[in-house]
């Protein structure tokens, strides 16, 4: 492949879960023409790793969205509360942050099990007629991961929201904006750097998760990290484990600079 040759050529690579596609384009006159094209189906026994990668990304995306949806109002209420209440809420968010991951996971196993409090409450409210499976499946993974990752979104967002002068929204209101449009056009845009930094941080952390999905997920909810650990510790397949680790590292390496730019603009110090 003339990847570094002088003639302008572009190589496109698509690694899918069922096939790997590659195409090379050469510039010809005003346009491009296809110089080479290849498609190679992935053997079924190797597809399992790409499936894990897909599951990893999917879980991370869902968790990031859920975290943003719940975390934004939390940070907003904290930022708008008075000094004392703001501090109390801040400590409330910080406390679970300090409690060991294993302890929180154990708590969720107890609460979400078939005889647990959540099932009991839903039964007595008449919302369900028999105990539901709330844990050891994807739902359990989402609940436990959002719980672990919420502070990573709420805290940076809160510190950004704290720095926005309230006068801005008052000024918008005095100029005739109704509260909704004042929020949307004046307040929300100023929180985007914090929201972006928080979401990227949550996503970066989520794709590396291992312990939580291993303990509250089913076998189809295991993420790429679990695969790496199993290959290394279970079957001593160091080569494959290292290859998957490098793949995961590349994913983080691609996302991290974007996060660094966001964090830089908000003045957060995260390294």
């Amino acid at each position, binding site marked *: 492949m003339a990847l570094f040759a002088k003639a302008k050529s572009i190589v496109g690579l698509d690694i899918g879960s069922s096939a790997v596609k590659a195409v090379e384009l050469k510039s010809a006159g005003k346009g491009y023409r296809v110089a080479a094209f290849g498609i190679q189906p992935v053997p079924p026994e190797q597809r399992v790793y790409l499936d894990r990668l897909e599951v990893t990304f999917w879980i991370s995306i869902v968790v990031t969205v859920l975290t943003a949806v719940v975390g934004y109002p939390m940070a907003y*209420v904290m930022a708008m509360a008075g000094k004392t209440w703001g501090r109390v809420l801040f400590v409330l968010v910080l406390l679970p942050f*300090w409690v060991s991951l*294993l302890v929180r996971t154990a708590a969720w196993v107890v609460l979400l099990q078939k005889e647990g409090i959540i099932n009991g409450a839903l039964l007595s409210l008449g919302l369900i007629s028999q105990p539901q499976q709330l844990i050891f499946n994807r739902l359990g993974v989402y609940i436990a991961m959002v719980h672990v990752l919420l502070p990573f979104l709420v805290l940076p967002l809160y510190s950004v929201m704290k720095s926005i002068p309230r006068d801005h929204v008052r000024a*918008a*209101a005095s100029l005739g904006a109704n509260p909704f449009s004042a929020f949307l056009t004046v307040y929300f845009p100023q929180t985007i750097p914090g929201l972006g930094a928080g979401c990227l941080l949550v996503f970066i952390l989520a794709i590396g998760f291992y312990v939580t999905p291993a303990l509250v997920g089913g076998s189809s909810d295991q993420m790429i990290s679990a695969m790496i650990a199993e290959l290394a510790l279970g079957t001593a397949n160091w080569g494959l484990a290292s290859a998957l680790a490098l793949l995961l590292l590349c994913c983080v390496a691609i996302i991290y600079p974007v996060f660094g730019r966001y964090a830089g603009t908000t003045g957060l110090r995260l390294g």
Partner: protein
Amino acid sequence: MAPVGPYRSPGVRCGAAAIRVIAGLGFVFMLAPIIAIIPLSFNGASYLSYPLRGVSLQWYSAVFAPTPWLPALWNSVTIGAATTVLATAIGTSAAYGLAYVQFPGRRLITVLLISPMVVPIVITALAIYLTFASFGLVQSFLGLVLAHTVLAVPFVVITVSATLHGFDRNMVRAATSLGAGPLTAFRTVTLPLTAPGVLAGAVFAFVTSFDDVVVALFLAGPEQFTVPRRMFNSLRDKLDPSIIALAVFLIAVSTVLLGVMEFLRWRSERLHNRTSVVMRSSEARLP
């Protein structure tokens, strides 16, 4: 809470109420699991559901029995203490050096020091395992301490750097002009003023080690099983009530540590009258 204004239409009030409800549910969601398991740890019966059958301390006596949790607690505390000493020494020196000495490659060294915080823990654990295997450090106390130090150093570097950021170097110049040597100036001026940051870093280092399960999965032999490592096994097998008693005990420890950090934050705010070091650095804590 709507942004402002005495004239609030019903739509705006609904929106404000919705924000408060979601936020309220979020705060309940954060705390509920931690609070809900506290009564269960005093349950008289041997199953983990409400209603409680009498009050008993039997599960706590199981936690502090000679096996299996007490040796694990001892391992966690000793490994955590050794890690704290090592990581605080390395991280503090690194932070001072990076802040006050100009040398080529500073940025690269900063990135390398911080990287264990960003790189997924499994990758760090795998890399450390493969490196340590050739030195015979796998399944040893020293190996686990060194690995935890790698994980903990970034937190110390960040907290101490943040403190130094707010530290006025003219104080050192004033001390020197009054006749203090560099060491005396460091010991009597720099260190006391940056102590909250160093202490905060030390607490972070301890918690990082005390919380780690992934590195322990790779490096700990049965002799070095820490509390999280043993909990990981127990949670995979069967949930027995003594784990919940242990969990409540650990929650109490975490609450005390959080209190210490809040106190340090308050102190450092009083010392520097600046934005909190602890608050900013606690945003950087990773699971």
